[in-house]
């Protein structure tokens, strides 16, 4: 089932260097690991867990991705970047399918992705979805400050600089920080 199915079957642009390489799924995964989320430049699309399937199609590739949030403006950019990365390495055509179900969850974020987030100054999502239910004034289990490591932190706003983040502040080092909220 594909909502928002986009096919990018445009001919190979002239003047682009065609790289002769082994074409297999492993190569595709390696290339995808180079495609970063424009709003979280330390995370690749593989780290984020949005790549659901990779298929080799003769000379081309078919990539199935799932959006993080319905309105995430980074998704369009990510789609374009995946296409550019793969076409510049000789995959043609590149087809990108967007699937909504099963819905993306932060559980799919890689362990190394979580560590990269923390190093970047963003608290990674807590491992379990504890408070993704609509009960009022509930808070997640303590979120650890990515700067000083304290668990003595408080939420300032459930909605942060992007749809996927909430705004927190550390009560010890006083630094405000983004928390990649569980979803």
């Amino acid at each position, binding site marked *: 089932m594909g909502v928002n199915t986009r096919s990018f079957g445009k001919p190979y642009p002239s003047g682009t260097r065609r790289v002769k390489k082994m074409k297999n799924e492993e190569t595709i995964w390696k290339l995808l690991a180079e495609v970063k989320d424009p709003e979280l430049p330390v995370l690749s699309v593989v780290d984020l867990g949005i790549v659901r399937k990779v298929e080799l199609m003769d000379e081309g590739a078919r990539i199935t991705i799932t959006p993080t949030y319905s309105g995430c403006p980074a998704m369009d950019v990510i789609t374009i970047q995946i296409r550019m990365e793969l076409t510049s390495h000789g995959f043609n055509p590149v087809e990108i399918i967007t699937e*909504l179900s099963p819905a993306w969850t932060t559980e799919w974020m890689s362990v190394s992705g979580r560590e990269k987030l923390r190093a970047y100054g963003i608290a990674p999502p807590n491992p379990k979805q504890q408070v993704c*239910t*609509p009960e*009022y004034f509930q808070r997640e289990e303590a979120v650890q400050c990515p700067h000083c490591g304290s668990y003595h932190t408080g939420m300032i706003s459930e*909605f942060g600089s992007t749809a996927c983040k909430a705004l927190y502040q550390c009560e010890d080092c006083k630094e405000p920080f983004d928390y990649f909220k569980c979803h």
Partner: protein
Amino acid sequence: MSFLLSLHLADDALMLGHRNSEWTGHGPNLEQDIAISNIALDLIGQARNFYQYAASQFNADRDRYRGLIQSPAFLQVAGAIDEDDLAYLRDAGEYRNHLITELNKGDWAVTITRQFFVSAYQQLFYSDLQHCPNETLAAIAEKSLKEVNYHLRWSGEWVIRLGDGTVESHRRMTTAIDLLWPYTGELFIAAGFQKDAMASELIKDPAMYRQPWLQRVESTFEQAGLKVPESTWAQQGGKEGTHTEQLGYLLADLQYLQRSHPNAEW
């Protein structure tokens, strides 16, 4: 008739998303400005998903749906239609949203109360739609529900904060509830296309959501020290294309660019 159902769900999300986006840069403080803008973004993303599906349904059976959209700008579209044609090129009478979603954003109390009423309804509705036999609608519902849960919690907390806040915030909440209450009844009255969708077991009778919705409203209002109005009179017609004057102004803003500069991209 999943075309009209999908169009209706898209219109609801787009109107509410657009109204919320009017707060961007004007929120009561920075954090809440960001919050309401994020909610707007979620809603417009949901609208895109439903419009894309509606467009695919339209393209697959043009003869069946052609008569439903007669605006001259829409009729000029050559070839297959897409999400943007549905969002930007219809006239007011061709929108199928609930009236409550198109009303002016009002003050913060009106925006919060409207968001709470609609999120509480959407939460119930999407919880069922995610299990419906139409795979695409089910997938969009599953995705949307995760976001709606956040919207409901955020708006419900604000209802309590404002209702149980100062004399002034309480007064504004009471005014907002009185203003919006007559528009809530429409959420639970099936329009023609909803009856068709019920017959094909895509959706349940929206009347079934009235009681659980009311329970959430009552329990939230109780915590907020607010009263649920007794009136049961319902203003309706939005789902059949009869709208308030406020939709015209909204569309003038929303559609201006595409109508003045057709096919403009940025």
